[in-house]
């Protein structure tokens, strides 16, 4: 279970990115975080994965209280999560296969398991024939699929996707969204931050709407409605 309890994030003492945000996400849910640019979506995700610390409030992820984690503990905590970013964030000097394998290698998984699992997962995202390609040799959609494969390969409890379709054309956008839906059907919690109206409206899942750092709406089967 993920919980934000009265979380504030204020930069330089005056710039409010998140204000008194409270919500809870249960295991297996597909939740969209929506809002205009600057509404606080990315800040919320940044706080959830421990990239930043809240100014006030508490953030829970299962048994972890994220806001209290020390720098050295963050990598171990992050092995419970898969993260997908708008700019893909692939390691440029590693091939698709090595990028996906890295998440497993970092957590000390045996080589045999990695050799078996990585091609399977890349095959699942439709990149079975691009194992040896470097990120520079892949299209935007392919890069994002590598990022998804990397996020899911260690079977995390939660996958957090921060504007994963922001850099993609409509065709690749739907490809990525349907992949996330499939992963969710397999039992993984998905948190999707986006401002893509069509995506949200077609999903028919829970939507948490942020505006100026505040949670203004939290609806099951929600739609993209901004005031």
């Amino acid at each position, binding site marked *: 279970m993920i919980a934000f309890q009265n979380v504030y994030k204020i930069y330089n003492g005056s710039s409010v990115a998140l204000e008194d945000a409270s919500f809870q996400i249960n295991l297996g849910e597909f939740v969209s975080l929506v809002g205009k640019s600057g509404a606080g979506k990315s800040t919320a995700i940044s706080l959830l994965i421990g990239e930043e610390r809240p100014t006030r409030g508490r953030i829970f992820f299962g048994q972890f209280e994220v806001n209290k984690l020390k720098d050295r503990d*963050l990598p171990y905590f992050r092995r419970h999560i898969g993260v997908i970013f708008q700019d893909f964030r692939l390691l440029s000097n590693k091939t698709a296969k090595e990028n996906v394998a890295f998440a497993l290698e970092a957590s000390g998984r045996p080589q045999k398991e990695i050799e078996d699992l990585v091609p399977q997962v890349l095959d699942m995202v439709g990149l079975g024939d691009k194992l040896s390609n470097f990120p520079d040799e892949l299209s935007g959609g392919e890069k994002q699929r590598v990022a998804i494969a990397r996020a899911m390969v260690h079977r995390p409890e939660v996958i957090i996707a921060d504007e994963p379709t922001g850099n993609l054309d409509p065709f690749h956008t739907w490809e990525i969204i349907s992949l996330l839906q499939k992963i969710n059907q397999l039992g993984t919690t998905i948190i999707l931050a986006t401002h893509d109206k069509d995506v949200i409206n077609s999903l028919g899942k829970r939507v948490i709407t942020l505006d100026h750092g505040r949670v203004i709406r939290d609806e099951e089967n929600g739609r993209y409605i901004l005031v």
Partner: protein
Amino acid sequence: MLTVISRVFQFGWKNFTRNGLLTTTTVAIVTLSLLVFLGLILFNVLMSSTVATLEDKIDITVSFKTITPEDEVLNIKRSLETLNEVKEVKYTSQAEALEIFKERHAGDEAIIQALRELGDNPLEASLNVKANKTDQYAQIAAYFENPVLGRYISNVSYAENQVVIDRLNSIISNINRGGFLATLVLILIAGLVVFNTIRLAIYASRDEIGIMRAVGASNSFVRGPFVVQGIVSGIVSAIFSIFIALPSVYSVSPYISQAIPEVSLFHYFLTNIHLLFIYLLLAGVIVSGLSSFVAVRRYLHG
């Protein structure tokens, strides 16, 4: 644990071979710095040889009156040899002094004739004294100021050469001090250049470090490959340095031998090549590895 260590080494090696331009730049800078380091080692060898040559030219000669019995001179020699400051005492008897004199003036018939007419040997026996350190000659000279010895001694060369000895002493200590300071400053500069080069290379990888941490890599798993990459750069640079230095020292050595005949730099280089390579290897590995270790640290937060 073994798997993790093996992966760290694999990643470090892959980073080294795949980051073409960054690797080339880093290796070039580390090689240049190691060549400076090697140059300093060779410079210090040259300086030590020069200083040793200068020191060898300093001594004290004590001449004894012709009436002094040989036993007395030999007693003084033995007592001098017990002094801590004395490195070596060489005795030249009256007869030996005469032989040397004759050899030196073999072509000068007038002098040889004058000697023959004199009958007795007019030359004095002498002791040639060398000190352990050049600044100990004053103490040794003071030993001969004893009035008991004064009866036998006709001349102590220290008084005549004191100005020259003091000047040589000052030159030697300046060379030592200057050489040490120059070495220290240049090593510091070379180390800083390497550190900054590696820092820039790692700055270029700061996003990748963030990605590694975001996907759950521990700090040591992120840092390890960079340190390995630094160590490999150090090893490769050390190999390049020794291969660049070999022909360079070979071509410079004859010119140095012209100026300081006692020194053959190339001979020194060849006979000590293993040791020099170990020095370069250690310097390269330590400076590059440590620089990588320190440079990654600032990106291991958040």
